[in-house]
Structures are given as structure tokens and as C-alpha cells.
């Protein structure tokens, strides 16, 4: 079964010092950037990426090449490329290992993408809490610049590019692309009204491409091996390979790079399955904001279309797996608490809805729920869903509604029995602290 795995982005992760420039170069690194800048026009790069069928890996799945082609060519203002590495969603952990293991893959992608959209300034926005990664990416930029891969007249092509690595200040909302731009401009990170879209008026009101780190990192391989090669992997409309992040009650958590369309069953088989003596109860296909699925969906191809057809979203391909010891109520509450804490406060439904839902869920967790709480929660979710300014609220609504859809009796039990009695929390923890139960109860 190992031939299921297709290491492209992760190809060099196992090599010693994979993050160092000389090691990256020794495996052919920066050849694709040289090829793009010296042998291809910007239009050719864009059409190559379009033909490859690369879609945004940040969750929305928008075709990357199409996004680039929206950039006006006649703007009097400069064009910017912004790379979104503000990975903060519970369960999502693909960009951080990618930057840790091979920052030059991203940088090479940045050079090619900037060239394609005619940007001479690129920004890499890294989640501020992960200081070691900020340092690693900064070092990579420094090294690349010293080697002449950044700066002026790169590869003698006459093309200039500077890259700034910016550390965020610790807000999940700054992963939303327009909030990220506000944050990058030094403002309070809150999503912006659209239109205008970033392609027209993004960073400093100039045409801007915002791409996920993994999308950009896929570009060098596409240029190196060609669109046809990339096309040959994946499903009909979800091309190429991607990183699946397996976490939770599994025997071997980690990153698994495979063509789009692999199933969770295949990945679990590859990785050794759930932890000893336990079985899968539910999982998220792409982080906590994607509706949870049950083992019935183990054979759903993990591509954009198939997951959508199953009532969820491929999202960031963060496969969080929970076994039968887990309280769905507790899980849902923890996620909702996260969203309540991270709601930027700009719009009413997200700000107030998360505040309200957390209180109801806490009652249910503690067995203090009341008849009708579930219906009330579902109605509050309905009043929130699709009505908020950005999609942050849709994330917590998805978690709650999917949990109730699949595990309603567990919520009903919360009308009389605390969740920790039904699902003793130490049983679902790998390293349970004995006092944890009392802490929660108090």
C-alpha cells in the first residue's frame, strides 16, 4: 500500500537538514524557479498552473491559476503576493511542518508565483505563536537572498523580488485573507467588505494575490515536472497531491502526502489504525470547522467534490480522529469555546452566537441542560449560519449541527447527566491527569 503515498511536497522531509539551502539545492531546488524566470513568460507560468488543476489548499479549493489571472495587468499600483501561513485551526497542522521541514520549497514557490503575477514584493504571513518557524523562514529568506534567488536581477532574468516574513499577533481570524491584509497593514485584524476583492484592491489598496502556503509550495513541482504530470494524480476535478494531517486517537499521527481522493480508511490502514483496542467514533475531514463525519464515511474519497457530497468540506485535510471514549458534547464545546475566543467581534451573529452557544453547551456538558436546549441551539445556529460577515461562524455552526445530527442522544443525555459521567475524560486522554474531572466539574 505504500505506493499510495506520493511525496512531492514532503519529498525531502526525511533528509538530514532538509531546511537548509544547500541540501534543498542538492536535490534540484530552485531549478524550477530558474526555469520559470529564464525560460517562461508570466503567462506561460499561469497557464501551466491552470492546466495542472492546482486548487487552493487553504480550504476553499479555488483554482490557483485562475486567481492569478484575475490580477489586472495595467494597474498603476504595485502588485503583491501574500502567502497565508497563519495556520491556527484546531486540528490543522500541515503548513507548520512544511515550513519547518522545507521552507525553501515555499520560497521557490513564492518566486515563481510572484513572477507570474508580476509582483516585486511578497509577504509571508506566519502565525506569530510559532516562533521557531518564523525564525526558520526568516533564515531561509536570508539565505536565498544571499544566494541571489531574491533581490535584483534574479537568475539574470532582470526580475526583482523582495520577501518580507511577517509574524502575526495571535488571532485565528487573521487567517481569513482580508483580515490578514488588515493585520499586515498594521490594523486590527478584521475581515473586510468585498468587493473590492484583494485581486483589485488588497494590500495597501493594490492588486494582491493571497495564497495558502501549501498551494504556493506545490508550484515548483508543477513547473519542474509539468502540468501533465501533476494532472495525472488525483481525481477528475481535484488534481495533484496534498498533505493529509492525521491526528487524534490514532496509533501513528502525522503528515501523509497522497493524491487527492485517498480515503480515510486507506490512510488509517497505512498508519496503523486507531489506538489499540479502540475504534473510530467520528472524524473531521478538514479541521474543526468542517462538519464531522462518522465511520460510515470512511470510504469517501478525500477530494473537494466527494467530501462536499457527504455533507462536509475537505477544508485543510486535517483528519482528526476520535474514538468511542470521546464525548461529542465535550469536543463540540471545546471547539465552540475556541471560536468564541477567536471571534473578532465585528459582526453580531458570530460574536453573540458563539457567546450564547458556549453557555448552552456548558450546561449540557454539566448535565444541566434543559428540555428544548437542542432545538434552541439549532435555531441559534440557523440564525448564525451564512449570516455572519465571514465564514468563521459557519465553522462553529458546522461543528455543532453535525454533532447533533450524528450524536443527538449524547446531547439529550446532557439534560440530566454530565458528559464526564457518560464518557470519563481520562479514558479519552492519552495522558490523563487524575484531577482533570474535578476541575471540569467545578
Amino acid at each position, binding site marked *: 500500500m505504500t505506493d499510495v503515498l506520493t511525496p512531492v511536497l514532503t519529498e525531502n522531509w526525511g533528509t538530514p537538514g532538509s531546511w537548509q539551502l544547500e541540501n534543498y539545492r542538492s536535490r534540484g531546488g530552485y531549478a524550477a524557479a530558474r526555469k520559470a524566470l529564464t525560460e517562461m513568460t508570466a503567462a506561460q507560468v499561469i497557464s501551466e498552473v491552470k492546466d495542472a488543476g492546482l486548487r487552493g489548499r487553504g480550504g476553499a479549493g479555488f483554482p490557483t491559476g485562475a486567481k492569478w489571472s484575475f490580477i489586472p495587468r495595467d494597474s498603476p499600483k504595485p502588485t503583491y503576493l501574500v502567502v497565508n501561513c497563519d495556520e491556527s485551526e484546531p486540528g490543522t497542522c500541515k503548513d507548520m511542518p512544511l515550513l519547518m521541514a522545507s521552507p525553501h520549497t515555499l520560497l521557490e514557490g513564492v518566486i515563481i508565483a510572484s513572477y507570474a503575477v508580476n509582483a516585486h514584493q511578497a509577504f509571508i504571513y506566519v502565525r506569530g505563536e510559532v516562533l521557531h518557524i518564523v525564525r526558520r523562514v526568516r533564515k531561509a529568506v536570508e539565505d536565498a537572498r544571499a544566494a541571489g534567488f531574491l533581490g535584483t536581477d534574479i537568475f539574470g532574468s532582470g526580475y526583482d523580488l523582495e520577501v518580507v516574513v511577517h509574524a502575526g499577533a495571535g*488571532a485565528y*481570524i487573521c487567517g481569513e485573507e482580508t483580515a490578514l491584509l488588515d493585520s499586515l497593514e498594521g490594523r*486590527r485584524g*478584521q475581515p473586510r*467588505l468585498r468587493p473590492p476583492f484583494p485581486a483589485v484592491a488588497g494590500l495597501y489598496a493594490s492588486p494582491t494575490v493571497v495564497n495558502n502556503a501549501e498551494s504556493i509550495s506545490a508550484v515548483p513541482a508543477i513547473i519542474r515536472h509539468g502540468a501533465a504530470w501533476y494532472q495525472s494524480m488525483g481525481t477528475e476535478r481535484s488534481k495533484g497531491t496534498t498533505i493529509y494531517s492525521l491526528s487524534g486517537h490514532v496509533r501513528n499521527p502525522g503528515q501523509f502526502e497522497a493524491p487527492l481522493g485517498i480515503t480515510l480508511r486507506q490512510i488509517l490502514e497505512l498508519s496503523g489504525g486507531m489506538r489499540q483496542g479502540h475504534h473510530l467514533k467520528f472524524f473531521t475531514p478538514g479541521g474543526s470547522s468542517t462538519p464531522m463525519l462518522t465511520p460510515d464515511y470512511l470510504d469517501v474519497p478525500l477530494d473537494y467534490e466527494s467530501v462536499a457530497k457527504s455533507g462536509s468540506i475537505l477544508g485543510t485535510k486535517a483528519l482528526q480522529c476520535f474514538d468511542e471514549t470521546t464525548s461529542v458534547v465535550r469536543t463540540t464545546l471545546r471547539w465552540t469555546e475556541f471560536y*468564541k*475566543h*477567536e*471571534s*473578532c*467581534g*465585528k*459582526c*453580531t*451573529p458570530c*460574536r*453573540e*452566537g*458563539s*457567546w*450564547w452557544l458556549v*453557555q*448552552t453547551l456548558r450546561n449540557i456538558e454539566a448535565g444541566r441542560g434543559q428540555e428544548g436546549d437542542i432545538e*434552541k441551539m439549532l*435555531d*441559534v445556529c*440557523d*440564525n*448564525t449560519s*451564512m*449570516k*455572519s*460577515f465571514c465564514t468563521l461562524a459557519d465553522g462553529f455552526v458546522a461543528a455543532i449541527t453535525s454533532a447533533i445530527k450524528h450524536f443527538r442522544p449524547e446531547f439529550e443525555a446532557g439534560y440530566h447527566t454530565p458528559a464526564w459521567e457518560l464518557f470519563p475524560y481520562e479514558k479519552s486522554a492519552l495522558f490523563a491527569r487524575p484531577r482533570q474531572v474535578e476541575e471540569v466539574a467545578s
Partner: protein
Amino acid sequence: MSVDTGSSRAAAKPELVEFTIDGQQLSVPKGTLVIRAAEMIGIGIPRFCDHPLLDPVAACRQCLVEVPDAGNGRPMKPQPACALVAMPGMQVETAASNATVAKHQEGMLEFLLINHPLDCPICDKGGECPLQNQAMSHGPGESRYEGVKRTFPKPVHISAEILLDRERCVLCQRCTRFSTQISGDEFIELAERGALSQIKNYEDTPYQSYFAGNIVQICPVGALTSADYRFQSRPFDLVSTTSSCEHCADGCELRIDHRAGTVRRRMAGDDPQVNEEWNCDRGRFGFRSTMLADRLTSPLVRREGVLEPASWPEAIDAAARGLARAGHDVGVLPGGRLTVENAYAYSRFTRAVLGSNDIDFRSRPASAEESAFLASYIAGRRFEQAVHYADLEAAARVVLVSLEPEDESPIVFLRLRKAWRAHGLQIVNVAPFNSAGATKLGARLHATAPGGEADALRTLAADGLLDEQTIVLIGERAALSPGALATAAELTKRRGARLAWIPRRAGEVGAIEAGALPALLPAGRQVADPGARVDLAAAWGVASLPATTGREVNAIIEAAGNRQLQALVTAGIQAEDFLDPRALLDALESVDFVVSLEQRRTEVTERADVVFPVAPITEQVGHFINWEHRIRPVQLVIDENPSPMTDVRVLAALADAMGADLGMRSPAQARAEFAQIADWSGERAHGPIDSGGGRPVTSQPPAPDSLVLAGWRLLIDDAAGLDGATELLATAPARVARLAPADAARLGLVSGDPVEISGPAGRLVAPVELVGEMSPGVVWLPLNTGSSLFATLGAHPGDRVHVTAPGSRPDGPNQSDGGAQ
């Protein structure tokens, strides 16, 4: 609220978009927001964050509508109508036709209320609260929320005047958007996040804005209140009157709310042509000066040297006797704050009853050049000929001369800022430096020391900056700069630019129309024109009018001082506003007889022989004429006095007692009479203006420590009209002396050091503020903050003053060794 489709500039027919709301076909200008379009056809969509004069933010989500077809055949998710631009073929459904939308709106209101305290019974906003109202009209009636509400310690002072109750805030961001977009005072911002989000000012800086009161008015809940009005009244106990502001020449429409015979608050009225929906804090909070203990309540007559209360008949007899004794030798100083009706009464009283032309409303520095300018360019100018606010918005360039809009004409400031934000209006500031206000207008500085305005205008003209797309706004301070008005008038005429004169006081343009100037009769007639005199004499029913041109303000004061004039009649003047305050007070003491019509005891009334208490602005009707030459109605607010003693009424009684007839006894009659003579088709004054008659420039040789004084009145300063507005005055900017860094360095001063400024009359000490782009050789001071510079220094903008570090002058008070001081 006004509907602004952004088409005010475009004379061309806008491109139209056809779409439907609830099945009704609409045709609206391209770019129209759905919420505005719905208003046009009377479909109500609830909203909190939306405000037609602020950029959309779509934060509250209360105005969600369904869009089954975006115009491209595809549906959209629920859209905020406040940020949704109508597209051709779009179908919009509101709660009126779609039950889902009604549910969205109910749900949103329920959300807004879960963290909102139900303290309506003690909230100032209760009774006029958009949240309360829309909770009733679009809310669920009962809340299903049983959880814990978010609370905050309350209230927070974000400035001395503005308080914030954070738990009431619905985070609509109207206040922060007003501050960043409209007034440009970015002192408040959202802080924290989620349900704990709150409006905050900076850690150690209060919210500093001349327009702060507007955020209270546009707050859709009771989160922002003014210290001034907090817990003063219930909205439903107030009686509202639409009137006009008396504080400056901008002419804001006001809503004045009173209860039990007392004005409780004033709000910005809604006049899209003038103040849109804003006003300044001076106009909003400065209304207590006539409610203080020094308010005159009965006439006063001087008996054996002492002013004593007297009956009206007694006082009128005493005044009539005294004026009759003076014959024609009476000077009249009616001040610049009168309604047109009152000013007209003074004009006619002076000419037809006293037989004098010695009348001048200018209770401020004035010049013969200015008189000629006012006669040629302002008097008799029709509204249609004048520059308007809308013209400022449409212009390509505005040149500011001797005018600091934020301080001296705040609504002009807001309009200029709006135009600069909307389409990059170029603003050229002829001033010694770009103030904070000018910076908020993106103004380009044409660095000019006071006195250099005429030269600056010539340079601008030579650079082609006074073309047909340009409007020159010139302030009343130009009277202190020889040649400025004459040059502005001549160059704008020659180069095709338009020119508007913006005085500070509300009554100045009206006083010019009423003929309260020595050489001008009502409606632009000239004293020197025999035809005009005959025409007016006939209308006024007198044999003739005095033909000799009267004295100007400074000459009136001089003549009273040396007793060429026998009597003075004054109304609403402050000595400190005049070029030489001491000279005025001396003249009032020297002259035989003084009649003062006033609202409060002042330095002037203390020197009068007869004092008449006249009705404040709230107890009379009338009109102001603003700088645009637009009529601004003043309405009766407090009607408890059935026969208020207005200036008109008192002058009529005086005329009766002197055996003459003023021809009017009330403002209404004055207005009717004025209307009959307002149409003058005869000759008017026309340029060119002699600029040689400017105030003589002091011949003092420039000493090494002498700098040119620059300055203007700040919007909130020691003005008498702001007395009693305690909280407002606490927001007044402090006095600083602004210097160019080079001058400060030469004097050994650094920022914050005290600096001593001395003029012919005395000296004062103020902290230094360094201004990088300040013209060298200039020191700037506010004219009436801390003390009146005219009184304290005896110096005026354009004069040279001595600037030293305190103690460094050999004759300074700190040098005690001589012991002679």
C-alpha cells in the same frame, strides 16, 4: 436621514440600474445601495451600523435580505442591504415578502439583546433608541437567552464630555467610522475581541475632537452619552424646535430640545445642503451662557454713579433723554451676532432716528480695505451668485487664506474633508504652517507669515492656481493683512476663480445686508449714493438720511474717547474682541452717555448709563444669513415670555420716546419691512479696492528676539458664548506657543519649555510647541485661550512681538537685582 446617491457633483444624467425589491420594479442610479433604494420606495429595513453618510461596514447584520437572483440567474446567501449594490436584474426580498428574512432579522435582534442590559428605564436613549424601537418592530418579543450577560464597569470617560457605557454598545462602529472618516480624529478604536470587544480611546489620550457630540447623536443605543445631558431628561418629555445655530457663520440647522422653560440639549439638524447631519461641539454644547447668574433680568439705570435696577418706562425715558442730548453724535456698535431683523433695526435706528451713519457691527479688527471689499463683494450678493457648500465639494481646488476651517468654520472643514476623501480635492493653505486641522484636509501648505497673504495670492495666481476650477475662501482675519482682500478680489476676478468670504460670527453677513456699516445702507445701497438715500428715506418715512459717510469701528471708538461723539449704543459686544480692548473701555468711560442692550452683565454694561436686557436667541424669531448667503431661520424655542424684549422691540420703544417711529416693533415686522426694501436695483459699490488703506504696519525695527505673531481663535476657547458649558470647556485645547525649530533653537528653547511673548500692552508665558514646517520668524498663539492676546499683549496677527525664554530679558520680572520692577 438624507439620501445621498453620490450624484451631487455629477450634472450628467447617471446611468440607471433596474432591479426589483419585493417584486417592485425600481430604477436607481448605478452604484446605489439596496438599503437606500428600499428607502426610496418606502420599504423599511431595520439597521444599526448603516448610516448614509458613513462608508458601509456591514457589521450588525440587521439589514439582511434574501437575493434569489443576483442578476446573473444565481442566488446569493443572505446579504446585508447596507453594503449590497443594486445590479441589473437583481431580485431582492425583504421581510415584507419573505418570512425567512423576518426570521433573520428577529434572530439578529435577539443576538443584539443577549448582551445588552435591559436598563432602558434609566438610559438616556430610552424613548428615542433605535435598538429599543427596532426590538419592538422587528424583534422576537421574548428572549430565549437565559445565560450570563457580559458586564463592564460603567461608565468610561472617553473625553471630558463623552461617556461610554460599554455594556450597552452593539459594536456598530458608527462612532469609530465617524471619527476616522468624517472628522478625521482617530482617537477611538475597537479593542479586545469577540463579545468583549469595546470602543476604547488610547491609554493616555482622551478622545479629542471638535465634533465629538456627533458620535453621541449617531449612536444607535445609549452607549455614548454626553456628560452635559446625561440624566437630564426623558426624550418624550422634551419639546423639539428646529432652528439655526448662532455660534458661527456656517449656519447649521439645529434641533433644540427644551423642557420646563429650559433648553436641555441641542442636536445637529438634518440639512443636506448645509451641515448634512453633523454639527460641532461648540454649536451642540455651547448653550448655557444665558442661563447663568449674570443674566440681566431687568433694565439698569445709573443713578449717582451706580447702576441700579429700574422699570422699563424709567429706563427708556433715561435712555431717550441721554440720546436726545447727544443729537447726531451717537456711535452704534451692534456687534456681529444679531439676527438680520435686529441688525436692520439698529441700522434704521442709527440713520432714521439718531441721524448718524456712525454704525459698525465689526467688533473685531477691521479695515477700510475690508469695508470696501464688503461693499463691493458681499453686500447685496444674491444666494444664487454665491459660493455654496456643494460648490466646495465639486471644486477641483480650494485655496484657504486667513482661514483655519476646523477652528473658524467647522462645517466648511467637514465639507472640505469630505471632498478630499471622495475625490482628492486639492486644498492650498496660505498660512504659516499646516495645523492639525489642515493636515486632516490633506492641505498643501503655501507657507506665508501673517501679512504676506497678498504676495502669496500673487504667487498662486502666477502659478496658475486661481483658475476657474478654484474657489478661494478668505477669512475675516484678512482684514489684518493689508492688501489681502483687495488682491483676492482682483485676482480671482481676473483669473476666473470664485471667492467667498467667511466671517466667524453668525450675524456678520446679515449685518452687512442690514446696512450696519458706516458707508452701507441696507441691501447694498451706498450712503454716498443720493438716489439710494432718497429711496430709503421715502421707505422709512423720513425727510432725509445723513449724507456724510460714517466712522468705522476704530474711528467710532476714538471719537467717543475724545468726546467728538457724545453717546454710544452697544449690543452684544465683548471688549476683548476689539483691536484695542483698552481703548474701547476707555471710550465707554469717557463718552457722556452709553446705552447697552445685552443679555448678561459684561465689562461693557458695567460702564453703561442705561442697560436693557434683551431676549436671548431662544426667545425670538428671526434669521441669520450664513457665509453662503443662505437664509437660516431662527425659531422661537422658549415661548413663556409672550412679549420678549428683543433688540427690535427696545429700539422701537426708544424711538417712540424720542418722538420718532422705527416702523417696526417685532422681528416679524422687521422682516416684513426689510423684505420690502431688500430689492435694490440701483448702483452698488464695485471695485477696484484701494489696498493702501490697510492698518498701518508698525514701524518697529525687527529686533533679534522679535517674531511675527500669528494666531486665530480656537473653536473652543474663552468665548463668552461658551460660559457655563463646563464639560465642553474641559475639552478645549490648551494654550501653546508654536515656533519653528530654528527659532526655538536660537532662543535656546526646546519643546515644552515656557516661552515669554511680550507686546506693547504686556506679556504672557506659554509652553513651546515646535512645528517643523512653521515659517521661520513666526510665533503662533491662540487669540483667546487663557487670555485675550489683544488685551494682554496689545498685539495682533501680523505684528511683531518679543519672544524670549522667561528670565532672559534684562527688564524681566525675574531679574530682581534692580529692584525697580
